[in-house]
């Protein structure tokens, strides 16, 4: 991480709060992610990290506070919001590939309908992306015919096809069989190396160590720590982080 304090943040959350009934799931969240930065969000389940990730492209609404992407405030419903979402790629835990469309169509739908690309051009770009994530030969199949790891790589290609400014990953490997986790992580590490701005909610500490610029530790709806990976894993400051790490790193 270079120390350009003056560079404006690409994603900026200021005093964000959200409640689910009586549960205060996001408590006064302040977070800045610079262009090209890879931020890994970790924490125990129920800590609000997925909600945080989903709030950034407004799949979850927030009660108060402000979220800015590339300087622009997140709009409410409507065309404006749709346009902004096109700039924010999202990869889900359960892949969510369009079940009735082929792999190729999954990747070209956004570019054709949202960006107005011709089908030929969209197909060409999609095939490039599918080759890059290693599923080019599966282009004509339906999502259900692919393994989980392949589906998730297609989902990454689908998000990349929109040429997003930032990519959000909401526990991208949590629904995968162990032998498929690495094929997805490899693609993500590649993206990080290419300079993509990424916010990754994950339990994969290996990925955090290898690719993250910063680790954000959340617990009970709050950001408890925000530090560099090595520092976080070797010298966690808070008791809660120490407790969390002792539970997951002993195995």
């Amino acid at each position: 991480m270079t120390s350009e304090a003056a560079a404006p943040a690409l994603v900026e959350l200021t005093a964000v709060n959200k409640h689910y009934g009586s549960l205060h799931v996001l408590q006064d969240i302040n977070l800045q992610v610079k262009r090209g930065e890879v931020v890994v969000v970790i924490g125990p389940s129920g800590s609000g990290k997925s909600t945080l990730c989903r709030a950034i492209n407004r799949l979850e609404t927030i009660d108060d506070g402000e979220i800015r992407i590339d300087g622009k405030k997140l709009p409410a419903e409507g065309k404006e919001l749709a346009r902004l979402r096109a700039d924010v790629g999202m990869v889900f835990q359960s892949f969510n590939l369009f079940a009735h469309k082929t792999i190729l169509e999954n990747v070209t739908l956004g570019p054709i309908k949202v960006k107005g690309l011709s089908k030929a051009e969209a197909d060409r770009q999609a095939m490039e992306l599918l080759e890059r994530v290693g599923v080019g030969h599966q282009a004509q199949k339906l999502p259900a015919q692919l393994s989980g790891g392949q589906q998730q790589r297609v989902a990454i290609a689908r998000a990349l096809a929109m040429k997003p400014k930032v990519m959000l990953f909401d526990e991208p490997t949590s629904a995968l069989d162990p032998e498929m986790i690495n094929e997805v992580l490899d693609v993500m590490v590649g993206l990080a190396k290419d300079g993509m701005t990424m916010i990754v909610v994950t339990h994969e500490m290996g990925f955090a160590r290898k690719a993250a610029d910063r680790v954000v530790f959340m617990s009970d709806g709050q950001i408890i720590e925000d530090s560099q990976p090595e520092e976080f894993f070797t010298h966690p400051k808070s008791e809660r982080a120490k407790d969390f790490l002792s539970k997951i790193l002993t195995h």
Partner: protein
Amino acid sequence: MDTLTENLELFTTGFKNTGILFIVSAFFALILGTVVAAMRVSPVPAMRGAGTLYVNTVRNMPLTVILAFFALGYPKLGLVPVNFITAAIIGLSLYTATYVAEAIRSGINTVPVGQAEAARAIGLPFMQSLTLVILPQAFRSVIPPLFNVFIALLKNTTVAAGFSVLEAGAIRANLSERGFPALTGLLWVALIFVILVIGVLSPLQRYFENKWRVAR
């Protein structure tokens, strides 16, 4: 058999009009019903409210009352005059659309919420998420209840007989005037309806179910 053969023109005209009522009403009910279903899942509260109000009022009115309004009440409003068959089509379409809307809405609810989230996440606006991602997946689970609705519509067309439309439901009355046994006529009408449902609608349903079957 005489009742059928000697009044063949009565039966053909009757069932031709039944066919017209059915096909045209089914067409408009499908379109209107899909629009209303879309309104009921829309993010705009006013749209949701309007859709719900329409379904709950029209669905709870007896079809006879709705047809009576269009055949007898509507002409007195002094608006564009419509003939009885058009009035029947309007009434049947508006009535059936409420059932279509609810069938489609139930289908929309079977599509995992992640599909809509993924559609929104790549920047598709609400209408495109619905038409490109949600509805194509909803329609396939909606075929059986939708055909229920259409079979009911086919039989509901006979109510129009009460409002001067010469369709299958009116055959009995005409037979009586001509001195043929009404009961025999009714049995023929019933048989032809059964043949229409089993011979036409059911194969159509099977066709769509097979066509839209998805690899799971």
